[in-house]
């Protein structure tokens, strides 16, 4: 089914999304990949607060290419989600509702998603030029010294993605 959804994503909305649904995401989301996840994981371990709000929010596993003058962002497709698996269950337990990436996840992620009613979306890997057109604003809000791996607050309009794992544990990948 095709669905247009707006962030933040409440639990009530999350449970209506099913593996196989094609969704168009609009609203505010946050980018974070390997190095930013490691820093957030370490911050939580030390009992520190995180630089982004997690409750009902969506993280896009993305490290964009540099923006040309007058554009909000460069090429902006998803990176492989599995590398974030080590750090993700804790973020889900803290309220993270959605993740946009590509590729397979571990059983631990699936369990944490069911426990917290979260959704995993796949954006189309390698379609970074097209996906960048769905991002209307981008601002680095944390870990600036990580360069492309810094955390960005993004405004997206109709970003196309497919629900590959839903809040009930169904998975589209074979």
């Amino acid at each position, binding site marked *: 089914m095709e669905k247009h959804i707006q962030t933040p994503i409440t639990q009530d909305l999350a449970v209506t999304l099913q593996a196989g649904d094609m969704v168009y995401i609009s609203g505010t989301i946050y980018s974070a990949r390997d190095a930013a996840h490691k820093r957030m994981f370490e911050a939580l371990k030390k009992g520190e607060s995180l630089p982004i709000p997690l409750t009902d929010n969506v993280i896009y596993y993305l490290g964009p290419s540099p923006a040309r003058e007058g554009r909000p962002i460069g090429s902006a497709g998803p990176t492989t989600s599995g590398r974030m698996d080590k750090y993700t269950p804790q973020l889900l337990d803290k309220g993270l509702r959605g993740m946009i990436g590509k590729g397979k996840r571990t059983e631990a992620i699936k369990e944490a998603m069911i426990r917290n009613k979260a959704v995993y979306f796949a954006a189309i*890997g390698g379609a970074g030029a097209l996906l960048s057109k769905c991002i209307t604003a981008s601002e680095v809000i944390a870990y600036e010294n990580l360069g492309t791996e810094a955390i960005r607050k993004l405004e997206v309009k109709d970003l196309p993605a497919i629900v590959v794992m839903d809040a009930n544990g169904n998975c589209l990948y074979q």
Partner: protein
Amino acid sequence: MKTIQTNKITEMIKEMCIEANYFLTEDMKHRLDASYTEETDPLGRQILSILQDNLKIAGEEMIPICQDTGMTVIFMEIGQDVHFEGGDLNAAIQEGVRQGYEEGYLRKSVVKDPIERVNTGDNTPAVIHYEIVPGDKVTITVAPKGFGSENMSRIFMLKPADGIEGVKNAILTAVKDAGPNACPPMVIGVGIGGTFEKAAILSKKALTRNVEERSDKEWVKALETEMLEKINALSIGPAGLGGHTTAFAVNIETYATHIAGLPVAVNICCHVNRHSKRSL
């Protein structure tokens, strides 16, 4: 004897880094278009159509095809009658990469140390493979390699008794394990023979070969054709969401090997199989 100034090499490498990240070669584009026509799965077709649009947007609006603009792999074929002037050739190549990634708005994806992991900020160093060949020509291939697919690549040190069936299993195992992570439709580069590192380099080089031309060795050509059919019967499909376009091509290169060994390297590339090749 031909004399080449190293600043000419810097200039070429810079241009080639940019070109490779915004435009695919004609054979890659043609395979993508043909796959769209041949794919029967509706979602698979939709994804292939998005990839066609993505390529068009990349070239027209100068946005890199993929945000992972790769670690830069460079093959340098240097004629033995060439003499370089103007400084360190290796430094000239790295300078070309530095300038290309800066001026081309390409992502800087290289960390200086695999454990300390601090970004070098200019995408250097590139990985450079030198080969000395007869003549007075220099042929350069710049192949930026994304790591979604690089991470799914494998090397298998098979036994001679494993034979061609062992080779087939190795290739299929690597592709199955890669699945959606490697951004299918993939291109599969395979190196068979040599030593541990020779097989790996051959598999990387195989990715830079035309995807619509088969090997001129009979058994290799048959293996390339058979493996592509088998891979496309796995139903991984575009973006790993089903369909039969799992790979565009299987390119295999071979080399002599030891009486005790049968190395097989499988270098997987995503649908953004980039390279730029020039001679001077």
